[in-house]
């Protein structure tokens, strides 16, 4: 054999009496490591960045600025448009990131491997949630900056902060929906299912002032995106169709239901 192995060059990996309990600092480090690499992976994947970052920014520039030309827009309308696009940008990362990402990892055996490894509880999912939140924060910041600099939208710092907060927290219900999709369908099928939900939801939940028949306007309430937009409108100080607290409760309930169904499915089939 041509390779000579020099035993002396190897550190002898003696088993240590490692602490069987994980110190809290190590546990937090594990969650942080998962989260950090999830963000890194997201930023490295153009196929993910284009629909989640470039698309909302581009559409906002087109519909929010270019299309309006120099016509003065009533401030309420510009804020409504801004709110719609911000929420549009919040839904993508959660739904695509978890829906497709988790389905893929399940299909590729990564989820099973991590269950066999001593991965702390749900560290992979929390990492994905963190990554989606980070991405949403980036897009919201971009949109708010574009809005105030180029679209002449006037925003107070408090309004901007509230809108960003709603956006970042608003990732949770859509990550939960993504998780449910990811636990139900295969990695190959997930993109189709996610798109099938994403695009109709954007239209039917009335995020944008597109013309819609009356019945559909009422039916908009069944979509979580509608309720998130209600919260965003409230954060920007605009009038809402529903009491924002009701919308918040609907979203929390929706997220809880998705997580419960996903957990049930995952315990049954893995």
């Amino acid at each position, binding site marked *: 054999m041509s390779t000579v192995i020099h035993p002396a060059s190897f*550190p002898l*990996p003696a088993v240590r009496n490692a*602490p069987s309990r994980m110190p809290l600092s190590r546990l937090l480090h594990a969650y942080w490591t998962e989260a950090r690499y999830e963000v890194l992976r997201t930023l490295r994947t153009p196929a993910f960045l284009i629909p989640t970052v470039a698309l909302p920014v581009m559409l906002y520039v087109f519909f929010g600025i270019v299309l309006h030309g120099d016509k003065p827009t009533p401030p309420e309308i510009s804020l409504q448009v801004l709110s719609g696009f911000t929420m549009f940008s919040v839904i993508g990362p959660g739904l695509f990131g978890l829906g497709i990402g988790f389905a893929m990892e399940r299909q590729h055996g990564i989820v099973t491997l991590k269950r066999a*490894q001593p991965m702390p509880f749900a560290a992979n999912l929390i990492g994905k949630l963190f990554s989606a939140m980070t991405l949403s924060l980036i897009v919201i910041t971009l949109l708010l900056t574009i809005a105030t600099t180029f679209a002449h939208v006037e925003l107070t710092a408090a309004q901007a902060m509230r809108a960003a907060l709603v956006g970042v927290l608003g990732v949770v219900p859509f990550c939960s929906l993504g998780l449910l999709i990811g636990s139900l369908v295969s990695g190959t099928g997930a993109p189709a299912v996610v798109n099938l939900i994403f695009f109709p939801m954007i239209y039917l939940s009335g995020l944008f002032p597109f013309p819609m028949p009356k019945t559909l306007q009422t039916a908009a309430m069944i979509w979580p995106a509608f309720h998130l937009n209600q919260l965003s409108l409230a954060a920007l100080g605009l009038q809402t169709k529903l009491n924002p607290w009701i919308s918040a409760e609907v979203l929390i309930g929706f997220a809880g239901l998705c997580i419960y169904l996903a957990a049930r499915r995952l315990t049954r089939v893995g």
Partner: protein
Amino acid sequence: MYSQTQLYPGPVASFAGVYKRYGNVHALDGLDLEVRPGELLAILGPNGAGKSTAISLLLGLQEPSQGKVAIFGESPRVMDARRKLGVMMQEVALAPDMRVRELIDITSSYYADPMPMHEVLDLTQTTALAKKQYGKLSGGQKRLAQFAMAICGRPRLLFLDEPTVGLDVQARERMWFTLRELVKGGTSIVLTTHYLEEAEALADRVVVLGKGRVVASGTVNEIRSIVARKKISCITSLEPHDVRQWSGVEEARREHQRLEITVTHAEKIVRRLLVTDSDLTELEVSRAGLAEAFNELTQETAQ
């Protein structure tokens, strides 16, 4: 170094009367098996013998229908027990965009006292791969990266599912070397393999599963001696179909110039061969390889 008795008072892993049923299928049918401290145990068995079910119970991926599975005296679902476990699975496709170093870094973060990165890379000979994307590695390099992930947490029990599939001879020899070093350091290793020479080269003990229970357990030599078959090989003018008629001959066939005979008691047949053909040359008698032993054992259970 710690002595092994200090580290492990009992078996590192155990199956006690374990049954696992899927509907009418009995994947495990009363499995009793212990993994002893510091041993390298090879689990062999044909498809459907219950190997993968046993493994997934051991890793806490499934619960037994009946009986008890334990690692370090606890349920494999207990996180503190699993932190002493290193895993290398077969059916896994890791994220192609991640670098090897990053994959190891994530896995290391799950353990309380992982090895430093350079040590992991050194030990698994993956230093040159550290900055490469996983998706761009060859099949063998991927196995090495997974091996690095399996050992990075200084596991006391290392579980390897077909670890050397796709490795070239050199890489396989190196992995075997590292495994022996780990065992010397006190790590217990359970591996499944289709390469019988791998079990022969590494295992302190071999367990053969058939129909969901242990069919045979012992050293490679013990397993072979359970099956008493011998192989006689020689150059002779005798015809296989004639020899096959002799009592005590199970099989005879010509391979190139040589006549290969499988027998239960070699001495009688050798005597008869020498008497019948005085021109017989290059006589060799050997024990049947593990492959033959293994086939016979699992066939017996199937009958």
